[in-house]
């Protein structure tokens, strides 16, 4: 995580309410944008926010789930902690999907929920839920506050925990009486917690051993994940890759940590990843995994995963080491530090033959899959791949790409040519349909000067479609691309391949998306013919303000390559 400079602690004591104290804590933590939705148990805080409008911009979403994903999108692009807020009961439970998503994708969030008054707790009061217990498995830390005087310390800890070490979501539940209560306010940022070691020190012996293993490799392969982006280790990683001379492959959370067209970037790992890196995983002699956690979507069958290779794992979280895959050389610590030391310790190398192997496998995938996806025969329906090819060319690979979950997600990540650091926002670990639209809103607030494009399926769009209202009201500029195959495409693909085409509950009778967009004051256009596609994408990307472009794509196209569940990475299928 980027370290953010904290505003000076408030030295003058003043007597204020818990609600106002909360707002002033947020300001002290450099929060200028937050997302939320009001309700009874959080009203005192909303009242306090009213007085601090110039310091904190509160974006009211149309659903608390939207607020949580918007805060995630904001955090992922800004490198700051995302903040969202909700009332007790249903407001709080609506945040759970966002918390779970942030927990799996290590996204720093501070979520504040209102709670019924402390004397009502346990009485099944109106809109009382035990949100602290409910959110426990999906938060890095959480706490309930029943006294105003405990608010500053809890908020300070919350921000420290959310952004340090392996980042994650934190929830603070504040009873209504604590919001009303007055006390002498003072704020001290949290600098450490005695039971918590966020930054394990890099062990020089581990670095030396890792360097020795890398130097003796004949066929090394680098795997990179979200940790590099979280550690802000752009240059450190690039230096390591280039000195090592090894091919490098990404997890979807690591995408955009290295330019897509970097000569050593051999593509995406895992289930719908590229052919070369998956095959090479089971051919390499040394695997250098950096800031990634060997998710099952990446490894396929773990019992047949890289058994021939020595595995080096650079990781900040000790609990991730040896969790899914046995590791030969663990290197604990922040990869910004460990990469610097490791680059220093290794010998500069190149592996012409091994890189030829990558080129040869890539050529095979080009021939069997990519050519047809990007340049389909004239008589075929529009493919998702060719839409993304145009989007990529016209935006010159510099946009922030926010994807939802499904076929369009895999296609976008495979074919968009990412040329800028930290440009991919997606729901990786949880695979949350409905993530993209609100996350794109958050991303836009984090980077108002960047082009933000949300790529969404016709199914996922309808899970959080109400956030069009947030775009309408805030007048922000988010480009929304709907890749409409009139199916829950990814589920249909599995039914096609593994359930003998029994298409159970996957066909979508869709509404008129253009009309809906227009109802929200958003310009919209629908493309059904290839001849109109490129021009429409130009209009889409050069428009002023938000724009919805719906493209009707082939209904029953499948995403390949694919590693079926339970198969090994080397059993990746090209058709």
């Amino acid at each position, binding site marked *: 995580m980027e370290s953010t400079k904290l505003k000076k602690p408030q030295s003058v004591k003043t007597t204020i309410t818990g609600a106002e104290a909360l707002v002033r804590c947020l300001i002290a933590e450099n929060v200028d944008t937050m997302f939320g939705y009001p309700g009874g148990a959080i009203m005192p805080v909303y009242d306090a926010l009213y007085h601090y409008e110039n310091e904190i911009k509160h974006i009211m979403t149309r659903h608390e789930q939207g607020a949580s994903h918007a805060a995630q999108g904001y955090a992922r692009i800004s490198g700051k902690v995302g903040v969202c807020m909700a009332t007790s009961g249903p407001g709080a439970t609506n945040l759970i999907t966002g918390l779970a998503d942030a927990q799996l994708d290590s996204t720093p969030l501070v979520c504040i929920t209102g709670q019924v008054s402390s004397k009502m707790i346990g009485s099944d009061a109106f809109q009382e839920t035990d949100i*602290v*217990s409910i959110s*426990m*498995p999906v938060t*890095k*830390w*959480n*706490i*309930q506050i029943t006294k105003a005087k405990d608010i500053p310390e809890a908020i300070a800890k919350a921000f420290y*925990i959310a952004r340090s070490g392996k980042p994650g979501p934190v929830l603070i539940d504040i009873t209504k009486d604590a919001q009303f209560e007055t006390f002498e306010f003072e704020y001290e940022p949290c*600098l*450490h*917690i*005695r*039971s*918590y*070691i*966020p*930054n*394990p*020190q890099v062990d020089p012996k581990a670095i030396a051993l890792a360097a020795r293993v890398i130097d003796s490799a004949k066929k090394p392969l680098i795997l990179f994940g979200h940790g590099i982006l979280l550690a802000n280790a752009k240059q450190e990683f690039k230096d390591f890759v280039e000195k090592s001379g090894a091919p490098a492959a990404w997890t979807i959370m690591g995408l955009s940590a290295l330019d897509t067209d970097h000569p050593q970037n051999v593509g995406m790992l895992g289930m719908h990843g590229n052919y070369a890196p998956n095959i090479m995983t089971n051919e390499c002699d040394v695997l250098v995994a950096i800031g990634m956690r060997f998710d099952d979507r990446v490894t396929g069958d773990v019992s047949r995963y890289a058994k021939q290779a020595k595995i080096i794992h650079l990781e900040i*979280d*000790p*609990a991730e*080491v*040896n*969790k899914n895959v046995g590791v030969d050389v663990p290197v604990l610590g922040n990869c910004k530090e460990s990469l610097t030391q490791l680059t220093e310790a290794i010998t500069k190398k190149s592996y012409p033959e091994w890189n030829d192997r990558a080129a040869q496998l890539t050529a095979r995938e080009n021939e069997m899959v990519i050519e047809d996806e990007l340049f389909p025969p004239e008589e075929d329906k529009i493919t998702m791949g060719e839409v993304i090819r145009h989007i990529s060319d016209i935006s010159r690979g510099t946009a922030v790409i926010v994807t939802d979950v499904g076929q369009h997600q895999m296609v976008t990540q495979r074919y968009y040519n990412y040329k800028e650091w930290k440009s991919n926002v997606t729901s990786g670990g949880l695979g949350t349909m409905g993530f993209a639209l609100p996350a794109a809103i958050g991303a836009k607030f984090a980077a108002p000067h960047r082009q933000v494009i949300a790529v969404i399926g016709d199914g996922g769009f309808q899970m959080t479609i109400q956030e069009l209202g947030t775009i309408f009201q805030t007048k922000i500029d988010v480009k929304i691309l709907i890749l409409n195959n009139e199916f829950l495409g990814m589920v249909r693909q599995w039914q096609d391949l593994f359930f003998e085409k029994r298409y159970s509950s996957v066909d979508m009778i869709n509404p008129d998306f253009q009309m809906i967009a227009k109802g929200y004051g958003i310009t919209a256009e629908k493309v059904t013919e290839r001849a109109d596609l490129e021009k429409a994408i130009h209009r889409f990307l050069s428009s002023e303000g938000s724009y919805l472009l719906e493209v009707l794509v082939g209904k029953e196209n499948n995403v390949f390559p694919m590693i079926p569940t339970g198969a090994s990475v080397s059993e990746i299928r090209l058709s």
Partner: protein
Amino acid sequence: MKEQFTISIYTENLIGLLHRITTIFTRRHSNIESINASESEVSGIHRYTVVITEEERKVKNIVKQIEKQIDVFKAFYHPNKNIVYQEIALYKMPTNILSQTREVEQIVRKHHARLLAVEPEFTIIEKTGFKEETQALFEQLKPHGILEFVRSGRISISKPMKEFQDYFLEVEKASKL
């Protein structure tokens, strides 16, 4: 191969932490055989003692997940051979049984148990030992009519000499880096 392990967890004394810890076991389908919460040798620091039967690989992962919790200082796991442990069991018997025959008294003596309380209506017998021992006493007393029985969670002390005190200082130092 599954084996019995005792996990000792040193934590801040906070509401809700027990829930956070137990869900780490339940989520992984690991059955908690016994759990005990108490103070530790360091003032203000809590200690949980949890007994499970699992493969060591899984125990290691569980321990790491526990240590990952913000308010946990340190967690250790030990196979039975590396700890000294005990459980305590209490048995409530009708007092008239004891006065009618000498048999119960002989059982109590044979098992090195003791009479904790003798009331006109009932007598409480206490036995400290391994589960097998408290269970053996239970089986022998059963024909004489046990009114109530309870066995505590395991408490254990590890044999290695490095103490939590030392780790505590290490953790506290590392938390500031």
